[in-house]
């Protein structure tokens, strides 16, 4: 990837990660490492039924085990938190099950002991009896099912557009988002061709190698929570709300994260450890096991029915119906349903559009955001659909896309005009690097070869706020305070580069203070590739503020403008010794207009992310085995702040989605997950990745971004699944519409195509 530096040369330079040495020596700080004086360890007893009333809970044997400090149930929790329901969109999730359980694996009780082995042994001695109730697991069935997950909907007060759902009963629909633009009915009536397909994305999950972990301790001034969280400011506000405390009595500290990917957002274990610490007046730490991650948060399984009207090779109308399987608690699902839902028609210029997007409660582990905020599920469907239409119409898949893509200035489904979205550039570079114009050898014998491409886009979630502080010490050294969480994406390094660019100093010389809500200012969260843009602006503004104050200090002490006097001398002149600080602050929130009754808005998002993938595959037609031989990822990331890290983000995102495409799937039996371990749920290893992987950021600039930059963490995921499915059809003529693309599915499809289907 070419290096393009600007100005001071700090932006556009592949600065090695600031914390690299700490990570390769095993010394980096994680919550995993935290040990507090007199700390208790919590182990969770979990539900074994998918929907039921708790008839009895017998904790006596657990309590009697020597070494057990205490066994805690919801009744105990309520003595310190009377209304123990939390969540970002709905206040629907209790700290421990309260009378009812809603999924298998839901926390019901916690055992506390100083020895984790004793706590775990005791948890296995707890016995619960349930009155089982009808459960629902499928998102389509949940639309009309007699089984209703929650008795009543409880939207959080923070979102005005959810207020109408308050108190609603007898429904599993947590949010229904509708968008109408133009006249789809007329477009379909006048079309040359109408195509309709339905696609399904399976339930998968994040599985950071550092599983969820939080610890809490009481201090003289309140409560301190050490947590592996992507959203320290949210945790502080939500815990303060639960306790009825002012924000400044809750301190949330976040060191490095051992991966996040959208799992470690909002409240996970934080409310639980807070309650346990308040109950026992002792520090409490809970570290989940790998298995328990399967009972905490997943990516939404989704069904997407998509229907297109084609006239003269142009897509003139599109109907989208998307059903998101949200699991037992809403988490951020309703936001995904709307804020990703409005991109369901894809990066195409379509005048007549309807979108119906539903967030559904089911009796499964709650679902949330996973590296793409719902976008990979949508692109999977619309780019498979695009390829199927091109194939049916005997049109070149690249040209069909080129004839229909959204160009700058054209309105997307919401009515928001596209700006700085390099969709065509991504398509062009992808087609070029895949050599799509050249003839392709489809192989002979039993191994067939194929190639496919796919492009997708995403709107940055809006509106969100970031605030940053830049502190210049009396010797001229610079410290950045911000609440962006570095979970491996390199945000410390990138933010340091932005400060360095403004102040014209080496990025390596800047210290970045990790999120600590007593010290670092508010940030909405590290999610959705928002940080480089939003926090990037706040950081840039803080650095510019510091720079302006340094200039004012120079004037004050009589240094002429433009004189190259070291910063330390300015402080020395003013304070007569090495003393003082310059504090620069920056705050950023983009402009935003909420959607109207038809889902339309002139300002849906501050920026667009674009990503595309090309794949070449070999399909063994005797076994159905698919080998991806080449994977090319191209994205519009604006101007890369750190080209090396940009490349690793594209690559890492693509490999993660590659796992979701080829192999990963949560297996269920009556709501019970049956493969909750790395032995049975296989994430990609070093032997699984395609032998050829290339990543490219196209030449582009985000005009509104800090130094032309925008986020990059998710863009590599967008096109992977449909590109591979498109390549499989190109190779052997069968079309898969459900992920993952396993050998069994390919082989069944091949046999069905031969008129010799296999038995189920």
């Amino acid at each position: 990837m070419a290096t393009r530096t600007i100005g001071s040369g700090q932006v556009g330079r592949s600065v090695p990660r600031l914390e690299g040495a700490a990570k390769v020596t095993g010394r980096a700080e994680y919550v995993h490492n935290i040990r507090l004086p007199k700390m208790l360890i919590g182990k969770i007893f979990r539900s074994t039924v998918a929907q039921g009333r708790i008839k009895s809970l017998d904790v006596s044997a657990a309590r009697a085990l020597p070494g057990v400090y205490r066994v805690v149930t919801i009744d105990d929790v309520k003595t310190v938190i009377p209304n123990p329901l939390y969540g970002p969109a709905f206040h629907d999730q209790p700290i421990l099950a309260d009378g009812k359980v809603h999924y298998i694996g839901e926390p019901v009780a916690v055992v506390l002991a100083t020895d984790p082995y004793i706590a775990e042994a005791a948890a296995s001695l707890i016995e619960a009896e349930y009155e089982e109730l009808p459960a629902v697991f499928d998102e389509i069935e949940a639309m009309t099912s007699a089984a209703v997950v929650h008795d009543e909907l409880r939207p959080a007060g923070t979102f005005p557009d959810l207020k109408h759902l308050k108190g609603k009963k007898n429904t599993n629909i947590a949010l229904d988002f509708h968008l109408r633009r133009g006249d789809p009915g007329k477009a379909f009536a006048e079309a040359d061709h109408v195509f309709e397909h339905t696609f399904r994305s399976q339930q998968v999950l994040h599985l950071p190698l550092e599983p969820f972990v939080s610890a809490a301790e009481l201090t003289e001034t309140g409560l301190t929570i050490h947590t592996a969280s992507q959203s320290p400011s949210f945790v502080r506000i939500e815990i303060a709300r639960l306790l009825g405390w002012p924000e400044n009595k809750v301190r949330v500290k976040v060191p490095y994260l051992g991966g996040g990917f959208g799992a470690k957002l909002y409240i996970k274990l934080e409310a639980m450890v807070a309650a346990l610490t308040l109950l026992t007046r002792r520090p409490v730490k809970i570290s989940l096991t790998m298995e328990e991650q399967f009972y905490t948060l997943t990516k939404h399984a989704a069904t997407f029915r998509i229907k297109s009207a084609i006239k003269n090779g142009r897509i003139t109308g599109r109907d989208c119906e998307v059903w998101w399987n949200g699991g037992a608690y809403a988490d951020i699902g309703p936001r995904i349903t709307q804020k990703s839902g409005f991109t369901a028609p894809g990066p195409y210029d379509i005048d007549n559009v309807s979108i119906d997007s539903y967030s559904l409660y089911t009796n499964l582990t709650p679902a949330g955001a996973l590296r793409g905020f719902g976008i990979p599920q949508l692109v999977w469907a619309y780019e498979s659909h695009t390829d199927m239409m091109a194939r049916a119409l005997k049109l070149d898949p690249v040209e069909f896309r080129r004839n229909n893509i959204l160009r700058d200035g054209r309105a997307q489904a919401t009515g928001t005009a596209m700006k700085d979205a390099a969709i065509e550039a991504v398509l062009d570079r992808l087609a070029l690097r895949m050599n799509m114009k050249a003839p392709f050898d489809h192989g002979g014998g039993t191994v067939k070869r194929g190639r496919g491409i796919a492009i997708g886009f995403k709107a940055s979630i809006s509106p969100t706020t970031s605030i940053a502080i830049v502190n210049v010490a009396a010797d001229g050294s610079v410290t950045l305070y911000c609440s962006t969480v570095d979970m491996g994406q390199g945000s410390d390094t990138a933010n340091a580069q932005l400060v360095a660019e403004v102040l014209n100093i080496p990025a390596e010389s800047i210290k970045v203070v990790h999120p600590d809500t007593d010290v670092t200012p508010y940030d909405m969260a590290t999610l959705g590739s928002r940080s480089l843009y939003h926090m990037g602006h706040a950081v840039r503004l803080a650095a510019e503020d510091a720079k302006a104050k340094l200039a004012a200090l120079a004037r004050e002490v009589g240094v002429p403008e433009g004189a190259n006097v070291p910063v330390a001398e300015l402080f020395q002149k003013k304070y007569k010794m090495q003393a003082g600080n310059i504090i620069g602050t920056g705050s950023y929130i983009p402009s935003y207009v909420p959607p109207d009754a038809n889902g339309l808005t002139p300002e849906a998002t501050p920026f667009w992310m674009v990503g595309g993938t090309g794949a070449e595959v070999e399909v063994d037609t005797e076994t159905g085995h698919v080998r991806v031989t080449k994977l090319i990822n191209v994205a519009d990331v604006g101007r890369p702040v750190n080209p090396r890290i940009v490349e690793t983000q594209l690559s890492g995102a693509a490999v993660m989605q590659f796992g979701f495409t080829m192999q990963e799937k949560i297996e269920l039996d009556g709501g019970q997950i049956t493969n909750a371990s790395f032995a049975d749920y296989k994430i990609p290893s070093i032997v699984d990745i395609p032998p050829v992987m290339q990543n490219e950021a196209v030449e582009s600039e985000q005009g509104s971004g800090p130094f032309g930059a925008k986020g990059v963490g998710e863009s590599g995921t967008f096109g992977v699944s449909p590109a591979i499915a498109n390549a499989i059809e190109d190779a052997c003529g069968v079309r898969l519409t459900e992920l993952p693309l396993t050998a069994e599915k390919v082989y069944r499809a091949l046999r069905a195509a031969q008129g010799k289907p296999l038995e189920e």
Partner: protein
Amino acid sequence: MRTIHFTLNDEAVSAQAAEHHSIVDVLRDRFDLFGARESCAQGLCGCCTVLVDGTAVSGCLYLAAFVDGKTVTTIEGLAQNGKLTPIQEAFLETGATQCGFCTPGFVLMAGQLLAAHPDPDDEEIRHYLSGNLCRCAAYPEIIAAVKLAAGKLRAGRL
């Protein structure tokens, strides 16, 4: 509980350990060494890798009692006086670490690989490191890091 005596990162040490304690438990709780991390707890991810008498083992499954009388090396024992090893340098230079949680395991396994195969090809690297998982999927960079480290080590031996 019993007392075990072993050599830990070149230092003679002893510690109390119960029969069921793994070496990761003892390193964390008795020696404040956090670089070997229990993640999957099944010996499948490699985050807990330590060297026992020079051989890489899954520390989450390796009982502490078994290191009695042996030599244990952890990631913290590699860099001497703050000077990174060529393998650690190579991981830094190629961007082969993202969240860093799996990195110690990969660095230790890469050391074992390069001791056995000083000039490994892609296939050998993939095969040797197949027992270590990286959810950030820095695999292409890890392969590049191993190759870079191999060059550094060969140059150092000349």
